[in-house]
């Protein structure tokens, strides 16, 4: 069963909040071709949690897809750190 949109949005917000501490991920994210789409997805998730927007199915899909991409970026960082050790 898939996670609720609230949980997905919260996880995305947590990733967003930690971007400033993870320069490597931030750099990798902003160098991607779809960087703008990912930032919009994170922004939507945060705005949704603030109660500033409601989202339709298209919006929910965009947020979920963004989480998948951002999560992969962060996991890639974890893998790199493990390799370094």
């Amino acid at each position, binding site marked *: 069963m898939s996670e609720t949109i609230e949980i997905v949005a919260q996880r995305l917000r947590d990733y967003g909040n930690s971007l400033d501490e993870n320069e490597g991920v931030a750099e990798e994210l902003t160098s991607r071709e779809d960087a703008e789409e990912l*930032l919009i997805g994170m922004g939507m998730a*945060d705005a*949704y949690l*603030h109660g500033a927007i409601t989202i339709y199915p298209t*919006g929910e899909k965009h947020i979920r897809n963004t989480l998948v991409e951002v999560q992969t970026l962060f996991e890639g960082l974890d893998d790199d750190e493990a390799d370094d050790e």
Partner: protein
Amino acid sequence: MPNSNLYSDPFLKQLVTKEPKLADTFFENVSKSKFSEKLAHCLESPSWALEKLGKEGLKHPNYPRAKLDQFLNSPDLFKESFWEIFESPNLTPDDIAKYSISENPNVRGSALMHEFGDKDRFFDFMSDLLASTESELPTVFTRACWSATLDDRLFQLLVNSHSRIPSTYTGTIGELLWRNKHLTEDQKAFLILAGIEKKTDANSDFWDGLGPTEHYLSSFAYFSKLGFVPGYNDQVENLKSLGSPNSAVIDALTSSGHPIGLLLAEQKDVSTDVSYDALFDLIEPHFLHRLFWTELCERPDFAIYRRNAYRTDDLFIEHPILGREFENAEPSDATRVGGVFIFDQAGEPWLAGTEELSIDSAINEITSYEETMMDICEHVRGNFEDLGACFIALTRYDEEAQLKYGFAFTEKVDDVILEVATADIDSDQYDVSAELNPNWNEILSWKALSDFKKEQIFELLVHGHNIPTDSKLKNDCDHFLGCMALHEATPPHLLKKLKELNMPIVNEVLASR
């Protein structure tokens, strides 16, 4: 009393002599209030009140010697207070001799530069400091340059190093010397001939007195009655610490010619000495603003006007003639115009101000007109914080984006944008306004004053108008002469005198009546 650390208050002096019990009541009220430190500057303050001030009272001649001894005999008290101790006029030659051999250069130098200090040893002390290879000169060196009495030999020694910058001051030794009030006329002439210039501050003369300075201590008796909070950014609540206004003290001070008594219709008519200090105590607390503006605002062409700009938030009036100079002045540099002051709601209970941030200003603050999330994060904000606010600010008026990304705004959207924008916004981005506070019971009224009091206020303003150099106070006086010319309650004989001043703006106002 501008630019003075210790002054005599002529009105308190009379109160102490004629009504000693009332004077004691007054000193006790101030002593218990949040303004007790003001006692330290007034020569009439009694010993018992100064004693309660601790080290702040040390420089006062009435500070008890026994209490001074406590500071001298306690190593800890001495260490934390020696700068104040050396300002005490009650130190003896023996005290100074004792500290002239201190190992601490700041203490030794302070003792040597004292009027009881050894002048030859002081010269050697300063000479050694200048010759020292130490990069940092102690603080006492800076203090000596701007506050010691310098004999010609020491003056020459300092002049020879005039371009050096002591580490404890941002200017040169030459600029420090210019701040020294004890320089002789010959020494000043020497500095001029040697091309040694004062530290550049174009506004220092213009604002004379209207920066942080002292009101007569006796004026505090009126402050609680009039609701004026002395001190920048202070709170109206602090006035309560002065207790209820004491009408017997106020009556006695007015009888001795206190200038603030002129503003109160119910007080008896007494001549006031025309002076800069009297003007300062009427204008700086904005009493004359209230006296004239409150009633002039009843006119359809006169209103309170607040305008903010970079690093300022000016309060003035709108009027076709009296408001013209302000209207035409550069907003960030208009506080100098006569009558204008910087608005501070906490200290101006007679006004009611509002500050609003429009949603468009908030959006511009967050996005800085950029069109992508990337640019906002990287170029405007420099971080990835508040991504939600950035997103909604970016898409607030973009219906296409709402369709493309599948979302709609809720009624909370603007609150979220405003909250984030408010956190970093400059005060000049707000839409500001002010009006007379409808809940304020104004007791100052030009209409209610006797012709005698009006005449006295006119004389004071003319004194300010005649200040030979351009200054804020002079400009303020000119503005209030204009208000006087406009006010319907100004008697004909004063209108005639106003005309005789031959001031263009006053004549224009008179012609418009």
